[in-house]
C-alpha cells in the first residue's frame, strides 16, 4: 500500500506531501521523502552514467529504508514525484502506471489559473484525485 506521495519543486522544495497512514510516522515520511532527493540528484546528474535511459521520467526505486520503499519520477519541468510504499515487492509496471496517472493529475492541478507556479498545491480536487489513484495502486484498474 502507498503510505505517502509527494511533489517536490525544482528547488527541492516540497509542493505537495500527503501521507496515507494512520500511524503517526508522518514526520518520518517527510524525512524519508526528503532524503530520497539525494538519490534523485545522484541518478539524474551523475556524469559517469550516459545510458540511453538517462532521461526517462521514471526513476524507479530510489531506496528502501526501514519498511518503506521510495519510488521516484522526474518530469521534464524538473518537478519530482515521490511515492512511498510499504509493499514488499512492487511491480515496475505498477509504479510506472501510478506515476503516469499522478502526472496527469498534477498537470491539471497546475493548470488551475489560481495556482502560482512553484508554489504549494492547495487544490482539493487534486487531493481527491490523488487519493483515488493511490487507492487503485497495484490493482490494474485505471482512473
Amino acid at each position, binding site marked *: 500500500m502507498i503510505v505517502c506521495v509527494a511533489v517536490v*519543486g525544482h*528547488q*527541492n*522544495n*516540497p*509542493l505537495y*506531501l*500527503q*501521507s496515507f*497512514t*494512520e500511524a*503517526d*510516522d*508522518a*514526520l*518520518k515520511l*517527510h*524525512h524519508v521523502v*526528503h*532524503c530520497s*532527493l*539525494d*538519490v534523485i*540528484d*545522484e*541518478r539524474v546528474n551523475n556524469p*559517469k*552514467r550516459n*545510458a540511453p*535511459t*538517462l532521461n526517462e521520467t*521514471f*526513476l*524507479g*526505486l*530510489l*531506496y*528502501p*529504508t*526501514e*519498511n518503506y520503499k521510495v*519510488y521516484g519520477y522526474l518530469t521534464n519541468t524538473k518537478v519530482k514525484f515521490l511515492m512511498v510504499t510499504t509493499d*514488499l515487492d512492487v511491480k*515496475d509496471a505498477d509504479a510506472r502506471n501510478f506515476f503516469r496517472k499522478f502526472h496527469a493529475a498534477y498537470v491539471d492541478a497546475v493548470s488551475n489559473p*489560481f*495556482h*502560482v507556479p*512553484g*508554489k*504549494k*498545491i*492547495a487544490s482539493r480536487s487534486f487531493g481527491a484525485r490523488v487519493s483515488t489513484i493511490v487507492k487503485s495502486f497495484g490493482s490494474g484498474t485505471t482512473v
Partner: protein
Amino acid sequence: MEDYPEELRTPPVPLVSIVGCPELHASISAALSIQQPPMNTLALPDFSKANILSRTAKNRDPLAPPQAPSGILKKDWLLKHRTRVPAAVAALFRADQVSGDPAQWLQACSDLENLKSIIQGRHSKLVVILVQAQAGDELGEEVTVALRKRAEIDSKNLIVLVQNDETERNKSLLKLMSVFAELCSTYYKEEGRRIKARIEKRNFSSVELSVRYCFKVAVYAEFRRDWPEALKFYEEGIRVLREMIGTSTRLPPAQRLVEIKAVADQFHFKISTLLLHAGKVVEAITWFRKHIRSFERVIGSPEVAFLHWEWFSRQFLVFGELIETTSTTVPDTLSPRFGTADNALTEWEFQPAYYYQLAANYLREKRCALECSSSGANLTGDNGIPDSIMPSVYVGQYVRLFEQGDTISVLPLSDTEYTSYALSEAERFQDSYEIIALFRKAYESFQSLGGTRMASSCSAGMAIEYYAAGDFSNAKQLFDVVAGLYRQEGWTTLLWEILGYLRECSRKLNSLMDFISYSLEMAALPLFSDRVQSFSENKSKSGPAGWPTISRREDIQEEVVNILERKHTPEVVDGEFNLQLTEDNAHLDIDQISPLRIVLVASVAFHDQSVKPGSPLLVSVSLLSHLPSPVAVDQLEVQFNQPDCNFVMVSTEEGSSGLNSHFHGQVVQSTSLTLFSNKWMRLTHEIKSGQSGKLECLSVKAIINKRLVVCCQAESPASMEDFPLWKFEDQVETLPAKDAALAFSGQKLIQVEELDAQVDLVLDSNGPALVGELFVVPVTILSKGHAVHSGELKINLVDAKGGGLLMSPRETEESETHHVELIGVSTVAGDEVSKDEVDSIRKIQYSFGVVSVPTLGVGDSWSCKLEIKWHGAKSVMLYVSLGYSLDSSEDAALHRLNVHRSLQVEGKIPMIVGHQFLRPFRRAPLLLSRIRSSSGDDKKDSLAMNESNMLIVSARNCTEVPLRLHSMAIESDGDGMQLCSVEQISGISDEYAVVAPNAEYKGIFSVNPRAINPNFYLGEICVNWSRDLHLGENEDSHVIMKQRLPEVHIEEPPLLVSIECPPYAILGIPFTFYVKIHNSTSLLQEIKYSLVDSQNFVFSGAHNHAAFILPKTEHTFSHKLVPLGSGSQPLPRITVTSVRYSAALSPPTAATTVFVYPSEPKFNLEKSHSRSDECVS
C-alpha cells in the same frame, strides 16, 4: 563484528595431530602450518597424552537415533572441531623402538592399539611415521609390514622420515603432508556425508537437529574449502530455522525466539561473509534483504521487543561492517538502471553508511522499546532477578546455576525471569553514544558521497541523541546546521521539528534571545499542512514542539509575549527553570538574509526619484509579518542616513510613554499600529530633508510589547525578493504598496537636489565682437542672500554650432588655429580686491579658464573682465559658472552651490578690404599675357613694366559701429622695394579717418614695376583700425589688419598705344589729336588701325589704316577734330590691331574722353595744363 568468536569469523582450518617423538614436532607443525591450504597441528609428546583426543561425553553408538536435544547449536562445537578433533593422527616411532628389542616393540604395539581405540570413535585417520636417524641404516621389510598390520593402514600411510638428512627429511615431510591433506579431506568428506545422510534420510527427531546438521555439513564443507556446498547448507539451515519460529515449543516463547535469532545471526554472518569474500556483492545484498525481510516482523512479546530491535540493529551494523571491510565497489554493469526491473538494487545499498544509519535507527527503536518495557517492569515492582544466571552451552540460551550442597545443577529459566534478567542487562548499557557513533559514521560517509540530505538527517539523529542525553550545546550546534538546509529547501515541517528542539535547547541553555528568535521563527513558519495531523500529537515522533498547527503557532507566539510582559509562562510553572527577561529590553536585528525576515519585514519607498531640499517628500513604510496572531506595535522608528529625517510613529493606544526621550526628530501619533498576519501595514509619511545628496532609509525599528525591539533593515520594493519559506506557500501575492508603480519600482533611497543659489551672475557684452580686437566681457557676481566662500568661476568657450572646443580640427596645438581664444581675465580697475588675488587664475587654456573668486559677504559684488580674441568670424557660446559654498566649513565644502550663465557672442569681420589696378593715363600697353590667358583660368593682374600703374585699395566697414581708420599702407618685403616702387598718392589726411558703417574708404597707390616678373609679390595691405570710442583712447585697442595682395604679372608690352590730345576743347574749335604707336620690339610690326565715327565730332583723315612700324620706332597718326557737343565727350573710338600678335588694342573709354567747353573758359590755361601733365607723368 568483533563480538563474534574468532572461530566464527575466520575460515576453518583442518586439524591433525602428531603423537610421540616430541623433538620432531616443531619442524613438522611448522611445515604443516605454512603449506597451502594450511593445517593446524595438535602435538602430543607421548602416547599417554593421547586420551585428550577421546570423546568427553560417554561414547554413544552413533547409529542409535539421538534423543531430542535441549538446544540447537552447542557453543563449543565449532571450536572443538578446530582445536581438539583432529582429522588425522600420526603416530611417530623411532626405528630402534620397533626393531630389535621385543619389549620396545610390544610397547609400541600397545601404544598403537590404545591410540587406535581412542581415535576410532572420531573416525579420525591414522598415519604411522617411522623415524630413522640416517637414510643409510637398514630397516627390515618385515618390521614395516608388521607395523602396518598392527596399525591396519595401507602402505602409503606409513611414512619413513629420515631425521638427520636434510634432503631426505624434506622429501618425507612433503609425503607426509600430501598424505595428511588427502586424509583430512576424506575425513571431512566422510563426516559431512554421514550427517548429510541423516538430513536426507530425515532420520532425526527434531528440527533443531536438522538445523544443527546443516550447520555441521556446512562447516565440514568449509574445512574442505567447498564454499558452494557450505553456502547451500547454511542457507538451508537458516530456512529451517525460520520455519522453527512457529513450530518449536521446546522453550518458553521469548527465549525460543532469542535462541533462534542468535543462531540465525551466526548463519547469516557466515553466509554474508562467504558471499562477500567470493566477491558476490549483489548476491550478498540481495541475501541481506531477504534475511531482513524474513526477520523484521518477528518481534516477539512487547516486553522483549527491545531484544529484537537490538538484534535487528546488529544485523545492519554487522553487514555494514562486512561491506566496509571487503571494500566492495558498485559494479559498473548495473549502475545505469538502479532501482528498476532490470536491477532491483539501489546505489545506497552498496554504501556501509546506509546500513549504519539504519542500525542507528533500529537502535533507537530498541531504546524506546526498552524504555516502555522497563517502565512496565518497574510498575510491577518485583525485582526478582535471579542471580547466577549465565549463558548455557547452547547458543542463545541462558540457564541459572542452582547449588544444593556441593552439587550444582543447571535449571531452565521462566520467561519472566529471563525477561527481567535481560532488562537488567540491557539497562546497564547506555545506547545513546552507540547511536551517536553510528550516526556519525553514516553522516561522514554520506557527506563524502554528496548525500547532503541523508547526511543532515543523520546529524539530526545525532543531535536528538545529544538532546536526549542532555548535552544541549552539542545538540544545538548540530540542529542549527540541519535547520539551515531545511530553511533553504523550504521543508517547513522538518524545520518546525528542528526549531522545536532548538527552542528547548536554548531554554535549557538559558539563552533568552535565541529562545525568542527561534520561537518567533516557529510562530511565523508556514504550515505545510496535510490533514493526518489531528491525531499525531506524539512528541517522540514529532519533536518537543508537537505537530505544526496554527494553534501551536499561536501558543508559541503567546509564550514569547508572556515572557516579554514578564507574565509567568506555563514552562516556568513546571519549574524546571525560569526564563527571565533580565535587561530591560530585548533587541532583534533582521536583515535580508535573516530567517526572521518572515517575522517582520519593512519595505520603504519614496514617492519621487528626487526632491528639492526642504520641500515636503512622501515616503511609504510598509510592514509585513507572518506571525499568526496580530502584533501590536507600540512604536515605530524610521531611521535615515540623514538623522534629522528620522521620525517615530506611536500608536495612540500606547501614547508616547514607551518613547525613548533622547530621540530627536518628529513624533507622529498614529491611531493604530497593529500588524495582521500576512497583511501589509502601509503607512505614508511626509518628511523634509534640508541636506542635498543621498537620502536613504536605513532601518525601521519596531518596539513590540514595550520590551522587544525589532530592527528591520529597510528594503526597496523594487529589489525585494520574496520570503525564503513563504514563497512556496500558495497564497495570493500582495504588494507592499497599493500603487503598482511604487510596489514594483519603489526605492528606499532618493537624491535630494542642492538648494538654488542666491547669487547673481551677470554677463554683459556690447554687441558683436570684431575679429582681431581684444573683446571684453564684463562679469559681475552679485550676492543676494548668500555669502560666497571659496568661490570659483569656470569659463568655457564653445562653438555655438556645437562641435565642442573652438579649435580647427587639424592643428590643435598651434594657438593661431584657434578661432577664438580666451586671453585673460582682469578685474575692473578701482575694485577693492587686491591684484594678486585676481591673478590667481589657476588655469587659462584657449577656450577654458578657472578663476578664483574672493570671499564675498552678503550683498557684496565683485566683477572681472574676460578678454577674448576672435581669430575668425565665428559665433561662440560663452559659459560662465560660479561654484561656491555657503561657508568655509568642511561639510559646507561638500555640497557647493552652482550658478550657470551663458552668452552667445558673434564674432564679426570688421572691414572688407578690396583692391583694383588701373592702366596708366591714356596709354594702352599691349599686354600679351592678357591675350594668352584668354582662357581666364588665372585672374592674375598683369602690369606693364616702367609704366606707373594705379592701385586702388578700398576698406568697407561691415559692422554696425563706426570704426576709425588710422592708417592704410602696402607693406612689401625688401627686394620688392627695388623691383617696384609703390607710393601712396592719396593717404589719410588727419590722424585717423572715421568710417561709418557700410561706408568705404579708398586709398590710391601708384605702382611702378621695374623688372619683368611673371608672378611678382607686391606685399600686403595693412589696415590699422579701432572702434570709434570717445572714452579711454588707448593704443592697444588699435588693431592691425593685414591682407595679402595677390601676385601680379609684370611684363614689357611690345606695342604701346598712347593718345595725345589737349586737356580740353572748345565747341566748334578744331584741335589735333595724335595716336602714337610705339614698337618696343626689335621686329617690324604690321598694325591695322581704325577710327570709328562719333556724332560729337567731325574729323578728317582716313578711317582705316595699315602700317608697318620699324623696330624701336614710333608711328604717329594725327586727326583734326571739331567738337560738335559740349561737356565731357568720348573721342572717336580707336582700335589698333597687331597682325603679328593678332591682338586688338583699344584704349579704355575712360582714358579717351575730353571735356568740351561751350566757349573759351576764363582761367589760366597754362596752369591747369601743367598740372594735368604732371598727373599724367
